Protein backbone atom coordinates (compact mmCIF):
# COMPACT_ATOMS: atom_id res chain seq x y z
CA UNK A 1 0.00 0.00 0.00
CA UNK A 2 2.84 2.40 0.80
CA UNK A 3 4.27 4.05 -2.30
CA UNK A 4 8.02 3.82 -2.78
CA UNK A 5 8.81 7.47 -3.63
CA UNK A 6 9.81 9.71 -0.79
CA UNK A 7 10.47 8.89 2.83
CA UNK A 8 8.81 10.91 5.57
CA UNK A 9 11.15 13.15 7.54
CA UNK A 10 9.97 11.44 10.72
CA UNK A 11 11.06 8.06 9.40
CA UNK A 12 14.42 9.53 8.41
CA UNK A 13 14.95 10.73 11.99
CA UNK A 14 13.92 7.61 13.85
CA UNK A 15 13.75 3.97 12.95
CA UNK A 16 11.46 3.16 15.85
CA UNK A 17 7.99 2.46 14.42
CA UNK A 18 6.06 3.43 17.57
CA UNK A 19 8.02 6.62 18.18
CA UNK A 20 7.52 7.63 14.54
CA UNK A 21 3.79 6.90 14.77
CA UNK A 22 3.53 9.00 17.92
CA UNK A 23 5.40 11.92 16.36
CA UNK A 24 3.24 11.76 13.25
CA UNK A 25 0.05 11.69 15.31
CA UNK A 26 1.17 14.69 17.34
CA UNK A 27 2.12 16.53 14.15
CA UNK A 28 -1.19 15.85 12.40
CA UNK A 29 -3.26 16.75 15.47
CA UNK A 30 -1.23 19.89 16.07
CA UNK A 31 -1.71 20.91 12.45
CA UNK A 32 -5.45 20.28 12.73
CA UNK A 33 -5.77 22.33 15.93
CA UNK A 34 -3.72 25.31 14.75
CA UNK A 35 -4.20 25.89 11.02
CA UNK A 36 -8.05 25.86 11.01
CA UNK A 37 -7.97 28.48 13.76
CA UNK A 38 -5.74 30.67 11.60
CA UNK A 39 -8.17 30.23 8.72
CA UNK A 40 -11.06 31.04 11.06
CA UNK A 41 -9.31 34.21 12.18
CA UNK A 42 -8.64 35.03 8.53
CA UNK A 43 -12.35 34.62 7.84
CA UNK A 44 -13.21 37.10 10.62
CA UNK A 45 -10.78 39.61 9.20
CA UNK A 46 -11.46 39.14 5.48
CA UNK A 47 -15.24 39.28 5.91
CA UNK A 48 -14.90 42.37 8.09
CA UNK A 49 -12.71 44.21 5.62
CA UNK A 50 -14.94 43.19 2.70
CA UNK A 51 -17.65 45.09 4.59
CA UNK A 52 -15.37 48.06 5.41
CA UNK A 53 -15.14 46.98 9.07
CA UNK A 54 -12.13 46.03 11.18
CA UNK A 55 -13.28 42.74 12.69
CA UNK A 56 -11.92 41.52 16.04
CA UNK A 57 -9.43 44.04 17.47
CA UNK A 58 -9.34 43.47 21.24
CA UNK A 59 -8.76 39.80 22.16
CA UNK A 60 -5.06 39.12 22.70
CA UNK A 61 -4.04 42.70 22.15
CA UNK A 62 -2.64 42.81 18.62
CA UNK A 63 -5.51 43.02 16.10
CA UNK A 64 -7.56 40.50 18.05
CA UNK A 65 -5.29 37.57 17.16
CA UNK A 66 -6.64 35.49 20.07
CA UNK A 67 -10.29 35.92 19.13
CA UNK A 68 -10.79 32.25 18.23
CA UNK A 69 -8.99 31.10 21.38
CA UNK A 70 -11.39 33.31 23.35
CA UNK A 71 -14.30 31.81 21.38
CA UNK A 72 -13.07 28.34 22.28
CA UNK A 73 -12.96 29.24 25.98
CA UNK A 74 -16.49 30.63 25.65
CA UNK A 75 -17.75 27.41 24.01
CA UNK A 76 -16.22 25.31 26.81
CA UNK A 77 -18.01 27.38 29.45
CA UNK A 78 -21.43 26.98 27.79
CA UNK A 79 -23.98 24.48 29.00
CA UNK A 80 -24.04 21.29 26.95
CA UNK A 81 -27.76 20.99 26.17
CA UNK A 82 -29.20 17.81 24.68
CA UNK A 83 -32.87 18.10 23.67
CA UNK A 84 -35.22 15.83 25.63
CA UNK A 85 -36.51 14.10 22.50
CA UNK A 86 -33.07 13.70 20.96
CA UNK A 87 -31.36 10.37 20.39
CA UNK A 88 -28.63 11.04 22.96
CA UNK A 89 -25.89 8.74 21.74
CA UNK A 90 -26.20 9.60 18.05
CA UNK A 91 -26.54 13.28 18.93
CA UNK A 92 -23.31 13.20 20.93
CA UNK A 93 -21.41 11.13 18.39
CA UNK A 94 -22.28 13.31 15.39
CA UNK A 95 -19.73 16.13 15.95
CA UNK A 96 -16.92 13.59 16.17
CA UNK A 97 -18.08 11.85 12.97
CA UNK A 98 -18.10 15.24 11.24
CA UNK A 99 -14.64 16.24 12.47
CA UNK A 100 -12.49 13.09 12.51
CA UNK A 101 -12.52 12.40 8.72
CA UNK A 102 -10.72 15.67 8.11
CA UNK A 103 -8.04 14.75 10.66
CA UNK A 104 -7.64 11.40 8.93
CA UNK A 105 -7.29 13.06 5.51
CA UNK A 106 -4.47 15.21 6.89
CA UNK A 107 -2.46 12.02 7.37
CA UNK A 108 -1.86 11.70 3.62
CA UNK A 109 -1.60 15.41 2.82
CA UNK A 110 2.03 16.17 1.87
CA UNK A 111 3.44 19.50 3.06
CA UNK A 112 6.80 18.87 1.44
CA UNK A 113 8.59 16.17 -0.55
CA UNK A 114 9.50 14.55 2.79
CA UNK A 115 7.04 16.28 5.15
CA UNK A 116 4.03 13.98 5.38
CA UNK A 117 2.75 11.26 7.66
CA UNK A 118 1.90 8.57 5.13
CA UNK A 119 2.31 8.21 1.36
CA UNK A 120 -0.56 5.97 0.28
CA UNK A 121 -0.64 4.46 -3.21
CA UNK A 122 -4.38 5.10 -3.28
CA UNK A 123 -3.95 8.61 -1.79
CA UNK A 124 -6.56 10.62 -3.64
CA UNK A 125 -9.05 7.75 -3.52
CA UNK A 126 -8.54 7.58 0.24
CA UNK A 127 -8.97 11.37 0.57
CA UNK A 128 -12.22 11.47 -1.37
CA UNK A 129 -13.63 8.41 0.36
CA UNK A 130 -12.81 9.59 3.87
CA UNK A 131 -13.80 13.25 3.42
CA UNK A 132 -17.21 12.04 2.22
CA UNK A 133 -17.85 10.59 5.69
CA UNK A 134 -17.96 14.07 7.23
CA UNK A 135 -21.42 14.69 5.86
CA UNK A 136 -22.61 11.59 7.68
CA UNK A 137 -21.96 13.47 10.92
CA UNK A 138 -24.21 16.30 9.76
CA UNK A 139 -26.86 13.79 8.75
CA UNK A 140 -26.61 12.04 12.15
CA UNK A 141 -26.78 15.33 14.01
CA UNK A 142 -29.78 16.53 12.02
CA UNK A 143 -31.67 13.28 12.46
CA UNK A 144 -30.86 12.81 16.15
CA UNK A 145 -31.82 16.37 17.08
CA UNK A 146 -35.55 15.58 16.76
CA UNK A 147 -36.07 19.01 15.28
CA UNK A 148 -37.75 19.69 11.96
CA UNK A 149 -35.28 22.40 10.93
CA UNK A 150 -32.35 20.16 11.79
CA UNK A 151 -33.89 17.36 9.74
CA UNK A 152 -34.48 19.61 6.71
CA UNK A 153 -30.91 20.83 6.99
CA UNK A 154 -29.57 17.30 7.21
CA UNK A 155 -31.57 16.21 4.16
CA UNK A 156 -30.28 19.17 2.20
CA UNK A 157 -26.73 18.32 3.27
CA UNK A 158 -27.18 14.73 2.07
CA UNK A 159 -28.62 15.87 -1.25
CA UNK A 160 -25.78 18.32 -1.68
CA UNK A 161 -23.15 15.70 -0.95
CA UNK A 162 -24.54 13.37 -3.61
CA UNK A 163 -24.80 16.18 -6.13
CA UNK A 164 -21.34 17.66 -5.63
CA UNK A 165 -19.31 14.55 -4.79
CA UNK A 166 -19.57 13.47 -8.43
CA UNK A 167 -18.07 16.58 -10.06
CA UNK A 168 -15.47 16.60 -7.26
CA UNK A 169 -14.43 13.03 -8.01
CA UNK A 170 -14.40 13.60 -11.77
CA UNK A 171 -12.31 16.75 -11.40
CA UNK A 172 -9.82 14.83 -9.27
CA UNK A 173 -9.89 11.98 -11.79
CA UNK A 174 -8.63 14.35 -14.49
CA UNK A 175 -5.50 15.13 -12.46
CA UNK A 176 -5.01 11.45 -11.61
CA UNK A 177 -5.21 10.49 -15.30
CA UNK A 178 -2.66 13.09 -16.25
CA UNK A 179 -0.28 12.12 -13.45
CA UNK A 180 -0.83 8.39 -13.89
CA UNK A 181 -0.82 7.87 -10.12
CA UNK A 182 -3.20 8.20 -7.21
CA UNK A 183 -0.47 8.90 -4.66
CA UNK A 184 -0.58 12.56 -3.67
CA UNK A 185 3.22 12.80 -3.70
CA UNK A 186 3.42 11.34 -7.20
CA UNK A 187 0.71 13.72 -8.42
CA UNK A 188 2.73 16.65 -7.09
CA UNK A 189 5.99 15.34 -8.57
CA UNK A 190 4.28 14.89 -11.97
CA UNK A 191 3.66 18.65 -12.00
CA UNK A 192 7.36 19.59 -12.01
CA UNK A 193 7.11 20.85 -15.61
CA UNK A 194 3.61 22.29 -15.63
CA UNK A 195 1.07 22.80 -12.86
CA UNK A 196 -2.16 21.04 -13.75
CA UNK A 197 -4.14 24.22 -13.28
CA UNK A 198 -3.04 25.16 -16.82
CA UNK A 199 -4.13 22.11 -18.83
CA UNK A 200 -7.00 21.29 -16.45
CA UNK A 201 -8.31 24.78 -15.74
CA UNK A 202 -12.02 23.84 -16.08
CA UNK A 203 -11.50 20.93 -13.71
CA UNK A 204 -9.70 23.22 -11.24
CA UNK A 205 -12.69 25.58 -11.23
CA UNK A 206 -15.09 22.67 -10.83
CA UNK A 207 -13.01 21.20 -7.99
CA UNK A 208 -12.97 24.51 -6.10
CA UNK A 209 -16.72 25.05 -6.58
CA UNK A 210 -17.50 21.47 -5.55
CA UNK A 211 -15.31 21.64 -2.47
CA UNK A 212 -17.03 24.84 -1.37
CA UNK A 213 -20.34 23.02 -1.86
CA UNK A 214 -19.06 19.93 -0.03
CA UNK A 215 -18.25 22.11 2.97
CA UNK A 216 -21.72 23.78 2.76
CA UNK A 217 -19.98 27.11 2.66
CA UNK A 218 -21.73 30.16 1.19
CA UNK A 219 -22.90 30.54 -1.56
CA UNK A 220 -23.72 26.80 -1.24
CA UNK A 221 -24.89 26.88 2.38
CA UNK A 222 -28.46 25.69 1.83
CA UNK A 223 -28.03 23.00 4.55
CA UNK A 224 -27.40 25.80 7.07
CA UNK A 225 -29.41 28.64 5.51
CA UNK A 226 -29.84 30.54 8.76
CA UNK A 227 -32.53 32.85 7.37
CA UNK A 228 -34.91 29.98 6.60
CA UNK A 229 -34.06 26.90 8.70
CA UNK A 230 -32.34 28.55 11.72
CA UNK A 231 -29.00 26.75 11.54
CA UNK A 232 -29.91 23.55 9.74
CA UNK A 233 -28.51 20.39 11.27
CA UNK A 234 -26.66 22.36 13.98
CA UNK A 235 -29.79 24.07 15.33
CA UNK A 236 -29.91 22.08 18.58
CA UNK A 237 -26.17 22.04 19.20
CA UNK A 238 -24.45 24.23 21.76
CA UNK A 239 -21.20 24.46 23.63
CA UNK A 240 -18.30 22.22 22.76
CA UNK A 241 -20.27 20.01 20.36
CA UNK A 242 -21.14 23.03 18.25
CA UNK A 243 -17.50 24.13 18.42
CA UNK A 244 -16.50 20.74 16.99
CA UNK A 245 -18.82 21.27 14.03
CA UNK A 246 -17.25 24.69 13.48
CA UNK A 247 -13.77 23.20 13.75
CA UNK A 248 -14.80 20.54 11.23
CA UNK A 249 -15.88 23.29 8.84
CA UNK A 250 -12.60 25.20 9.09
CA UNK A 251 -10.61 21.97 9.10
CA UNK A 252 -12.48 21.07 5.95
CA UNK A 253 -11.47 24.34 4.32
CA UNK A 254 -7.83 23.61 5.13
CA UNK A 255 -7.99 20.01 3.94
CA UNK A 256 -9.79 20.71 0.68
CA UNK A 257 -7.55 23.72 -0.03
CA UNK A 258 -4.61 21.39 0.52
CA UNK A 259 -6.03 18.76 -1.83
CA UNK A 260 -6.81 21.42 -4.47
CA UNK A 261 -3.25 22.65 -4.16
CA UNK A 262 -1.86 19.11 -4.54
CA UNK A 263 -4.03 18.26 -7.53
CA UNK A 264 -3.80 21.49 -9.49
CA UNK A 265 -1.33 23.99 -8.04
CA UNK A 266 1.74 21.80 -7.73
CA UNK A 267 1.43 21.20 -3.99
CA UNK A 268 4.77 21.91 -2.34
CA UNK A 269 6.54 22.75 -5.62
CA UNK A 270 7.98 26.27 -5.57
CA UNK A 271 7.18 29.00 -8.07
CA UNK A 272 9.82 29.23 -10.86
CA UNK A 273 11.53 32.38 -9.56
CA UNK A 274 10.80 32.08 -5.84
CA UNK A 275 12.77 29.14 -4.41
CA UNK A 276 11.09 28.74 -1.02
CA UNK A 277 11.05 25.49 0.98
CA UNK A 278 8.18 23.12 0.20
CA UNK A 279 6.18 23.41 3.44
CA UNK A 280 6.12 27.21 3.15
CA UNK A 281 4.95 27.00 -0.47
CA UNK A 282 2.28 24.47 0.48
CA UNK A 283 1.02 26.58 3.41
CA UNK A 284 1.00 29.66 1.19
CA UNK A 285 -1.12 27.84 -1.37
CA UNK A 286 -3.45 26.51 1.34
CA UNK A 287 -3.96 30.01 2.75
CA UNK A 288 -4.42 31.52 -0.72
CA UNK A 289 -7.12 28.97 -1.55
CA UNK A 290 -8.74 29.45 1.88
CA UNK A 291 -8.78 33.17 1.15
CA UNK A 292 -10.56 32.40 -2.13
CA UNK A 293 -13.18 30.34 -0.27
CA UNK A 294 -13.75 33.19 2.19
CA UNK A 295 -13.78 35.75 -0.59
CA UNK A 296 -16.56 33.79 -2.32
CA UNK A 297 -18.52 33.85 0.93
CA UNK A 298 -18.06 37.60 1.25
CA UNK A 299 -19.31 38.18 -2.29
CA UNK A 300 -22.11 35.87 -3.34
CA UNK A 301 -25.63 35.38 -1.98
CA UNK A 302 -26.92 31.89 -1.19
CA UNK A 303 -28.25 29.76 -4.03
CA UNK A 304 -31.79 28.41 -3.84
CA UNK A 305 -32.06 24.65 -3.26
CA UNK A 306 -33.24 23.89 -6.81
CA UNK A 307 -30.62 26.20 -8.37
CA UNK A 308 -27.97 24.43 -6.34
CA UNK A 309 -28.99 20.96 -7.51
CA UNK A 310 -29.46 22.15 -11.11
CA UNK A 311 -26.01 23.74 -11.13
CA UNK A 312 -24.34 20.50 -10.06
CA UNK A 313 -26.22 18.08 -12.29
CA UNK A 314 -26.71 20.23 -15.39
CA UNK A 315 -23.46 22.20 -15.69
CA UNK A 316 -20.63 20.97 -13.44
CA UNK A 317 -21.02 17.27 -14.13
CA UNK A 318 -21.18 17.70 -17.92
CA UNK A 319 -18.16 19.99 -18.09
CA UNK A 320 -16.17 17.64 -15.86
CA UNK A 321 -17.03 14.60 -17.99
CA UNK A 322 -16.26 16.45 -21.21
CA UNK A 323 -12.87 17.58 -19.95
CA UNK A 324 -12.00 14.09 -18.76
CA UNK A 325 -12.77 12.91 -22.29
CA UNK A 326 -10.47 15.60 -23.69
CA UNK A 327 -7.71 14.61 -21.24
CA UNK A 328 -8.12 10.94 -22.14
CA UNK A 329 -7.82 11.65 -25.86
CA UNK A 330 -4.85 13.96 -25.35
CA UNK A 331 -3.10 11.39 -23.18
CA UNK A 332 -3.60 8.63 -25.74
CA UNK A 333 -2.59 10.89 -28.65
CA UNK A 334 0.64 11.94 -26.92
CA UNK A 335 1.77 8.37 -26.14
Amino acid at each position, binding site marked *: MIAETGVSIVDQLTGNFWLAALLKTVGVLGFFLVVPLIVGYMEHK*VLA*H*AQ*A*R*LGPMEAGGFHGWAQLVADGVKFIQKEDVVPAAADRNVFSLAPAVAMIPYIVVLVVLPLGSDVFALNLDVGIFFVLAVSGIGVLGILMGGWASANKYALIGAMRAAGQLIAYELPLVFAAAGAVMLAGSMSLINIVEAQRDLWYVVPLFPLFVIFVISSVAELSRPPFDMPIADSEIIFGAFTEYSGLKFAFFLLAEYGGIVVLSGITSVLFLGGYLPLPFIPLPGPIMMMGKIFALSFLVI*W*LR*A*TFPRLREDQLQRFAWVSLLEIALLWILVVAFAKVAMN
Partner: protein
Amino acid sequence: MAIETQGTKGIGQGLLKGLGVTLKTMLRPAVTQQYPHVKPDLPARTRGVIALKEGNCTVCYKCARECPDWCIYIDAHKEAHEPAGGGRARSVKVLDRFAIDFSLCMYCGICVEVCPFDALFWSPEFDYGEYDIDSMTHEKDRLEQWTYTVLPPPELEDGAQPPAEAAS
Protein backbone atom coordinates in the same frame (compact mmCIF):
# COMPACT_ATOMS: atom_id res chain seq x y z
CA MET B 1 -35.96 33.18 -17.26
CA ALA B 2 -36.07 36.92 -17.96
CA ILE B 3 -33.14 37.42 -15.61
CA GLU B 4 -30.97 34.95 -17.49
CA THR B 5 -31.55 36.61 -20.88
CA GLN B 6 -30.66 40.03 -19.48
CA GLY B 7 -27.10 39.09 -18.64
CA THR B 8 -26.02 37.80 -22.05
CA LYS B 9 -22.80 39.85 -22.04
CA GLY B 10 -20.76 36.82 -21.08
CA ILE B 11 -20.91 33.95 -18.63
CA GLY B 12 -19.74 34.89 -15.17
CA GLN B 13 -19.15 38.58 -15.85
CA GLY B 14 -21.50 39.56 -13.06
CA LEU B 15 -19.77 37.12 -10.71
CA LEU B 16 -16.35 38.59 -11.48
CA LYS B 17 -17.71 42.10 -11.01
CA GLY B 18 -19.03 41.09 -7.59
CA LEU B 19 -15.65 39.67 -6.61
CA GLY B 20 -14.08 42.93 -7.76
CA VAL B 21 -16.38 44.97 -5.54
CA THR B 22 -15.54 42.97 -2.41
CA LEU B 23 -11.82 42.99 -3.22
CA LYS B 24 -11.83 46.76 -3.71
CA THR B 25 -13.62 47.21 -0.39
CA MET B 26 -11.07 44.93 1.30
CA LEU B 27 -8.21 47.09 0.07
CA ARG B 28 -9.86 50.31 1.22
CA PRO B 29 -9.23 51.33 4.84
CA ALA B 30 -12.09 50.37 7.14
CA VAL B 31 -14.45 53.11 8.27
CA THR B 32 -14.66 51.78 11.84
CA GLN B 33 -13.78 54.28 14.59
CA GLN B 34 -12.30 52.44 17.56
CA TYR B 35 -14.43 54.29 20.08
CA PRO B 36 -13.05 53.71 23.56
CA HIS B 37 -9.52 54.23 22.23
CA VAL B 38 -10.35 56.99 19.76
CA LYS B 39 -12.97 59.70 20.21
CA PRO B 40 -15.42 59.69 17.31
CA ASP B 41 -15.64 62.62 14.90
CA LEU B 42 -19.07 64.02 15.56
CA PRO B 43 -20.84 66.66 13.44
CA ALA B 44 -21.33 70.18 14.79
CA ARG B 45 -25.06 69.70 15.25
CA THR B 46 -24.69 66.60 17.47
CA ARG B 47 -27.16 66.64 20.36
CA GLY B 48 -24.81 65.27 22.97
CA VAL B 49 -25.31 67.39 26.05
CA ILE B 50 -26.67 70.88 26.84
CA ALA B 51 -24.01 73.36 27.94
CA LEU B 52 -24.62 76.62 29.84
CA LYS B 53 -22.64 79.81 29.32
CA GLU B 54 -23.43 81.36 32.68
CA GLY B 55 -22.32 84.86 31.76
CA ASN B 56 -25.01 85.08 29.09
CA CYS B 57 -27.85 83.93 31.33
CA THR B 58 -30.25 86.65 32.52
CA VAL B 59 -32.39 84.29 34.59
CA CYS B 60 -35.44 84.83 32.45
CA TYR B 61 -36.70 81.29 33.21
CA LYS B 62 -37.83 80.81 29.61
CA CYS B 63 -35.90 77.54 29.25
CA ALA B 64 -37.26 76.10 32.48
CA ARG B 65 -40.83 77.04 31.56
CA GLU B 66 -40.63 75.73 27.98
CA CYS B 67 -38.99 72.47 28.99
CA PRO B 68 -41.57 69.73 28.26
CA ASP B 69 -40.49 67.51 31.12
CA TRP B 70 -39.36 70.12 33.65
CA CYS B 71 -35.82 68.95 33.95
CA ILE B 72 -34.21 72.40 34.34
CA TYR B 73 -33.87 73.69 37.90
CA ILE B 74 -33.13 77.41 38.38
CA ASP B 75 -32.69 79.27 41.67
CA ALA B 76 -31.89 83.00 41.73
CA HIS B 77 -32.09 86.04 43.96
CA LYS B 78 -32.36 89.76 43.29
CA GLU B 79 -29.63 92.25 44.13
CA ALA B 80 -29.79 96.01 44.01
CA HIS B 81 -26.90 97.47 42.01
CA GLU B 82 -26.02 101.15 42.46
CA PRO B 83 -25.05 102.64 39.08
CA ALA B 84 -21.56 104.20 39.13
CA GLY B 85 -22.83 107.57 37.88
CA GLY B 86 -25.47 107.78 40.56
CA GLY B 87 -29.24 107.39 40.17
CA ARG B 88 -31.65 104.87 41.58
CA ALA B 89 -30.50 101.37 42.34
CA ARG B 90 -31.19 98.78 39.59
CA SER B 91 -32.53 95.38 40.50
CA VAL B 92 -30.46 92.56 38.97
CA LYS B 93 -31.14 88.82 39.10
CA VAL B 94 -28.19 86.67 40.16
CA LEU B 95 -28.10 82.95 39.30
CA ASP B 96 -27.65 80.68 42.34
CA ARG B 97 -28.35 77.33 40.80
CA PHE B 98 -28.81 76.11 37.26
CA ALA B 99 -29.09 72.35 36.91
CA ILE B 100 -30.35 69.98 34.23
CA ASP B 101 -31.53 66.51 35.16
CA PHE B 102 -30.30 64.46 32.20
CA SER B 103 -32.22 61.43 33.40
CA LEU B 104 -35.38 63.38 32.56
CA CYS B 105 -34.11 65.39 29.60
CA MET B 106 -35.36 64.06 26.27
CA TYR B 107 -32.89 66.10 24.21
CA CYS B 108 -35.62 68.02 22.37
CA GLY B 109 -33.49 71.17 22.31
CA ILE B 110 -36.40 73.54 22.99
CA CYS B 111 -34.42 75.25 25.78
CA VAL B 112 -31.53 75.92 23.36
CA GLU B 113 -33.95 77.28 20.76
CA VAL B 114 -35.86 79.46 23.16
CA CYS B 115 -32.93 81.05 25.03
CA PRO B 116 -32.98 84.74 24.00
CA PHE B 117 -29.37 85.48 25.00
CA ASP B 118 -27.43 82.46 23.65
CA ALA B 119 -26.69 81.02 27.06
CA LEU B 120 -27.52 77.41 26.13
CA PHE B 121 -25.67 75.34 23.50
CA TRP B 122 -25.53 71.83 22.18
CA SER B 123 -22.21 70.14 22.85
CA PRO B 124 -21.25 66.82 21.16
CA GLU B 125 -20.01 65.31 24.46
CA PHE B 126 -21.92 62.10 25.11
CA ASP B 127 -20.01 59.92 27.57
CA TYR B 128 -21.31 61.32 30.86
CA GLY B 129 -23.20 58.22 31.96
CA GLU B 130 -23.49 57.46 35.68
CA TYR B 131 -24.29 54.35 37.72
CA ASP B 132 -26.87 56.21 39.82
CA ILE B 133 -29.88 58.05 38.39
CA ASP B 134 -29.55 60.83 40.99
CA SER B 135 -26.07 61.61 39.71
CA MET B 136 -27.48 62.49 36.31
CA THR B 137 -28.45 65.98 37.54
CA HIS B 138 -25.57 68.23 36.56
CA GLU B 139 -24.99 71.63 38.13
CA LYS B 140 -23.89 74.80 36.40
CA ASP B 141 -20.13 74.30 36.88
CA ARG B 142 -20.34 71.07 34.93
CA LEU B 143 -22.63 72.66 32.34
CA GLU B 144 -20.12 75.51 32.00
CA GLN B 145 -17.30 73.01 31.39
CA TRP B 146 -19.21 71.58 28.45
CA THR B 147 -19.31 74.97 26.69
CA TYR B 148 -15.60 74.48 25.92
CA THR B 149 -16.47 71.46 23.77
CA VAL B 150 -19.15 73.22 21.69
CA LEU B 151 -18.25 73.06 18.01
CA PRO B 152 -18.56 76.06 15.66
CA PRO B 153 -21.68 75.88 13.49
CA PRO B 154 -21.18 74.33 10.06
CA GLU B 155 -20.74 76.50 6.98
CA LEU B 156 -23.95 77.64 5.32
CA GLU B 157 -24.86 75.89 2.12
CA ASP B 158 -24.72 77.73 -1.20
CA GLY B 159 -27.74 79.95 -1.68
CA ALA B 160 -28.82 79.76 1.96
CA GLN B 161 -30.22 82.90 3.59
CA PRO B 162 -27.77 84.57 5.98
CA PRO B 163 -28.70 84.08 9.63
CA ALA B 164 -31.04 86.76 11.03
CA GLU B 165 -28.63 87.81 13.79
CA ALA B 166 -25.86 88.45 11.25
CA ALA B 167 -28.09 90.87 9.28
CA SER B 168 -29.15 93.00 12.30
